[in-house]
């Protein structure tokens, strides 16, 4: 791939991006010790404050039951 092809590829990928402002997906987090479950937007400003407290992502196959 030459440089021009690579630049074209980058531009094409950028053009395929969804419009900004679309609703963020939700992610479920659980604290492994307290069992508390939080469902928050999948954005760093929502996730990081919980993650630094130890909250971890609940894999999709686990039911969202408090205290699982």
């Amino acid at each position, binding site marked *: 791939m030459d440089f021009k092809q690579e630049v074209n590829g980058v531009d094409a*990928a950028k053009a395929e991006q969804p419009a900004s402002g679309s609703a963020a997906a939700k992610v479920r*987090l659980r604290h492994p010790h307290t069992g508390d479950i939080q469902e928050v937007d*999948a954005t*760093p400003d929502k996730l990081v404050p919980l993650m*630094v407290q130890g909250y*971890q*992502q609940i894999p999709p196959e686990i039911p969202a039951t408090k205290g699982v």
Partner: protein
Amino acid sequence: MAARVQQLVLGLGLGEQTNIATASAAFLRFKKIDMALTTPKPVFENDAAEIGKGHEFATATFPSHYDVANRIEKYASAEFVAWALAFGLGNVVQSGSSPNYTYTITPIDPGTSLELPYFSVVEQVPEGGGAAIDNMHIGCAIEDFTYAFTYGPGRASSKLTVNWVGSGKLTTPSGVTVPALTTESNMLAASMALTVNGIDLVATKRILSGSIGWKNNLLLNAGFYPGSGLQSGLQLRGRMEIGARVPSFQFTARLLATSTEAALLLAQTAGSAVLSVQYDANHSAAFTFPQLAFQMVENTEADGIVAITVTGTPEYATSGGVFSAVCKCGITGIAG
């Protein structure tokens, strides 16, 4: 016959091992820059220092333990950066969908766990119709990673180096069919955005080079606990816990009359530092220190241009922790 090191097939575990002794179920194959091959090093001790033999020489050797470690130096692709930070920091939330899976990554909370996610490393070197090397190292953890950027052209402007340590558990031959090479999206330093303590170092065209590092200081001796297990009579690590972790951030920038770093150092003003690089909108990495003070500001030069090197002190912020990263790439299931 002989084998060339370019024939190395390097496979890194994709998902988190279920425990330190159970091999990864799937692998990613990566290229790397350095030539270092992993040695499954059995360590033996002897009785030379023991008294009562009548001399100071060894009369016997005794199996001790396995010691396995290596480094992976690579150009910083979105895929490898996501892999390295996910396993190196440990708390990973995956969201989004193809083509841009988003990994929000923070260091593990020591109140929750002291163990990082484990992965397996496969190294294969075909030779003469067989294999000169075909090892799978099971139960590996990342000791440290360093993202380094610099001015200059090409992929060398943006690199990531990982040092990893193994439990010692080894499977030979590996029995693994490593997949095809991962398609990597290299994030050149030319794509960088960098704001430190309120200073936009890219907009002012001042930034020259720098590095972001994380060291887990794994408690390696504590991994050899009573009952940790043996392989061929040699002790294996049954755990690798984090020690006192050390984040680091250093950068070199051109020094202008209007530069404020020295004033910020004296005032010990702390602010956020955010560095991001990307290949495109689907392949990127953003590193955030929520609260960074300056520990040292030194005058220097680069290519004859006056500059300063700033060493930061990452501080723990109540809401944002000490460090976090958001990585986007097309691979799903990293450290999951």
